[in-house]
């Protein structure tokens, strides 16, 4: 490693050598796999969700589909996978093996009961065989049995009930894993807290459809002619994950430790989750795309960043962005701005002209001869869409204007129709 920055952190009283864990998924399916991830540098694991062997678990085949954008592959992943298809005994034997060989790595057992008693049974079995913590899977979107997976995550009273059952059974810390397929997460998270949860993890996969076969009309993955609305993960869901973690991070009433999940691939993604309140980080899809080795760049990148910023402890970064997230009514609307164009760098593609013309303030005209944009700063809306499409870095930058500056208004085309106008200003009746 590049330096001596210590990435260790305490989460629910348990010490993690670093905050980066495999999340519960195929990447944490067996003891052999998890052992290799530990060798690669991961700080812990949330093992693939266990069940009590009461119904046979068979994964659909095929069970995943990728989501591409243009030539950019795998920006998202869809899966219809079930919980662990191994029997409980084999998984528990692997727990013993992992705890024996990797005593300093944190082993979190993810469980899902199909009844209150099953939750208790699985919690106990996990604790008895070395699990350091539990994660209650209230969020798998592919379980069709009522009272399981995300059906629980959406029936908030069950969250409280099952959490309380588990808490009564075991003494190790308990995390509740939430589904994002709700409008607000605070309420179910508070139910988990009510039941005694020590931490919240989020997000599980986001319900969606990644692709529809345009020849056979069957969405993907195509399981013998059928598919399902099912869980999306990977880079495309990161904004949703950041949203839920930040909202829970800001909620005083909740104030539980958070484990951030959703599209984390680089140290920057991980840091963003930490900045909105996560103190551990869980990863699946980017391991599905690139393997366990990505941990090296996550650790080295974050350590170097912290060294450069003179930050010694991860804990000092947790939630640091939260004070800067507010609802829009708190904004300073008086200060307006426009853009600066550094035309020395311009290559003449004309995309700024197209987008400003069709989607913004018509602030740009086009010099056909020189192939250069001509900016009328007074019309610029400061939406910045031109800078998003511009191929040259830092050619177009935001420019804050003094309070005295006024933007030119868009022309009104219908002035000559004033006499035909049927309109009077809204007048509050009360």
């Amino acid at each position: 490693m590049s330096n001596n920055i210590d990435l260790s952190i305490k989460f629910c009283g348990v010490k993690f050598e670093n905050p980066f864990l495999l999340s519960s998924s195929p990447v944490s399916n067996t003891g052999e796999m998890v052992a290799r991830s530990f060798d690669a540098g991961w700080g812990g694991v949330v093992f693939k969700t266990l069940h009590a062997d009461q119904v046979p678990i068979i994964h659909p085949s095929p069970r995943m589909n990728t989501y591409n954008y243009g030539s950019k592959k795998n920006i998202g992943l869809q899966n219809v996978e079930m919980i662990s298809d191994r029997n409980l005994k084999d998984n528990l034997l692997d727990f013993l093996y992992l705890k024996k060989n990797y005593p300093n790595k944190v082993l979190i057992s993810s469980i899902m009961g199909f009844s209150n008693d099953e939750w208790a049974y699985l919690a106990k079995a996990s604790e008895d065989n070395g699990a350091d913590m539990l994660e209650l899977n209230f969020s798998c979107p592919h379980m069709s049995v009522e009272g399981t997976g995300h059906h629980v995550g959406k029936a908030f009273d069950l969250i409280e009930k099952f959490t309380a059952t588990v808490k009564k059974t075991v003494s190790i810390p308990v995390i509740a894993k939430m589904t994002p397929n709700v409008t607000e997460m605070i309420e179910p998270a508070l139910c988990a807290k009510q039941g005694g949860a020590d931490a919240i993890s989020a997000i599980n996969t986001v319900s969606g459809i990644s692709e529809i076969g345009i020849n056979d009309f069957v969405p993907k993955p195509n399981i013998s002619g059928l598919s399902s609305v099912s869980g999306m993960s990977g880079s495309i869901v990161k904004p949703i994950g950041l949203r839920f973690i930040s909202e829970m991070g800001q909620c005083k009433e909740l104030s539980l430790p958070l484990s951030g999940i959703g599209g984390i691939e680089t140290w920057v993604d991980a840091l963003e989750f930490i900045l909105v309140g996560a103190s551990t980080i869980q990863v699946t899809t980017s391991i599905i795309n690139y393997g366990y080795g990505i941990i090296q760049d996550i650790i080295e990148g974050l350590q170097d960043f912290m060294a450069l910023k003179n930050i010694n402890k991860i804990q000092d970064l947790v939630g640091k962005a939260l004070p800067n997230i507010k609802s829009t009514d708190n904004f300073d609307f008086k200060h307006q701005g426009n853009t600066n164009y550094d035309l020395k760098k311009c290559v003449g593609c004309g995309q700024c002209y197209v987008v400003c013309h069709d989607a913004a303030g018509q602030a740009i005209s086009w010099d056909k001869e020189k192939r250069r944009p001509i900016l009328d700063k007074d019309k610029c809306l400061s939406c910045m869409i031109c800078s998003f499409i511009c191929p040259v870095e830092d050619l177009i930058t935001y420019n804050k204007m003094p309070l005295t500056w006024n933007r030119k208004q868009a022309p009104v085309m219908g002035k000559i129709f004033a006499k035909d106008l049927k309109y009077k200003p809204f007048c509050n009746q009360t």
Partner: protein
Amino acid sequence: MQCSKNFHEMELGFDLSKAVAEADRCLLCYDAPCSKACPGDTDPGTFIRKLRFKNITGAIRTIKKNNVLGGTCGILCPSENLCEKACTAKLKSEFNILGSDNAIAIGKIQRFLVEHGWETGFKPLKPGKPRKEKIAVIGSGPAGLSCAATLAQHGFKVTIFEARAKPGGVLYYGIMPYRFNKSFLDKELEDIKELGVKIKCNTPIKEHKGIEKLLKQGFSSVFIGIGLWQSKSFHEKFDKEISGLYPSVDYLSGICDQRFKTIEQQIKDKTVAVIGGGAVAMECAEASVNLGAKDVYLVYRRSYLQMPAEKKEKIRILDAGVHFILLNQPIDYLIGQNKKIQGLQLNRTLLGKVDKTGRQNPELIPKAKWNLKADIVIEAIGNKPDSNSYKLYPSVKLNDKKLIINEKNTMTSVKGIFAGGDIVQGPSLVVKAVQDGKNAALDIINYLS
């Protein structure tokens, strides 16, 4: 020397994922400069944009409608000096552009799209509503094919008269198969034949005034696209009977027809001297290497920079192992018994004053003659119209180089006779011949309505 590649196989093109990745780098320029830079109006700005937005069939349609030899041009155009030269993505210079500083590989995308159309069976071209007029096209090179295809899409009955056994002109008889192979040409020809164009091979027009007479034999208009099929020689004593002495046209066309085996045997393990510094000389030199010649010398009377061939070609030829003998002017043939060539007498030169082509003129150094031994000598210093071709159209005005002069757009001095391609432009490019043929078709339609 070793034959570096299979003589009859050309490099594979892009597959779908490569083409999509390349299209993703495109900046989707407004008023796209690449489109303006294409001499054939193939409109790369539009077809790449269509590919980018997954409108693959539309992209294929754009290419084929604008350039019926779009696949061929994708392979043969010196695109780095045409469309790709204008590519904005290339203008990275000192700025930090996302992606890379290479031009978008327009030619390769174009080739891919056309091949993809063949693979998926998508046919964007349709014959037009039948019209009664019949049009004669002389020559099945790029100019003639393009003219015929455009006319057929407007419903005309078109017959192409072709002197040789196979259609395609230089595409069949000039360009070596490892650069552009015949089965690719066949597919592109198939698209044209499906429009109802009739190609009559082995049907040279040779009668005196033969081309002009067609107007009285039921054809409403005639298009001349006969190209340049006679090699120039540096020597007035040039003699077909000298064995081992080849004009470039015979050498290259021989390789492309049934004489292949004979020529291969003649070249294998022998010393070859090629005279010239243009694209055709490069083609001859590279072909000789690939046929297994022991040594290939390229003799050019000026220096490296003055050679008219593309830089990329020159470097490719050098890397293939051809020895460049620059600043040497051939003076005479060395001829042995039985009129067998034995090499060339060369005279070393220095560059002197700039001539009207803007290049310095080679001046002979006194007492600096020497002999270059060679088993085969190929003359590739330029092509000109066949010395008898003007007799086929004696009323048509020609310039001092015997090239046809187009008076109004593509119409010659004789009403109803149109011309284009190399026979008008001099040695040019496939894409320019395609454009000429297309323009002539539109002029013919105008003329007839």
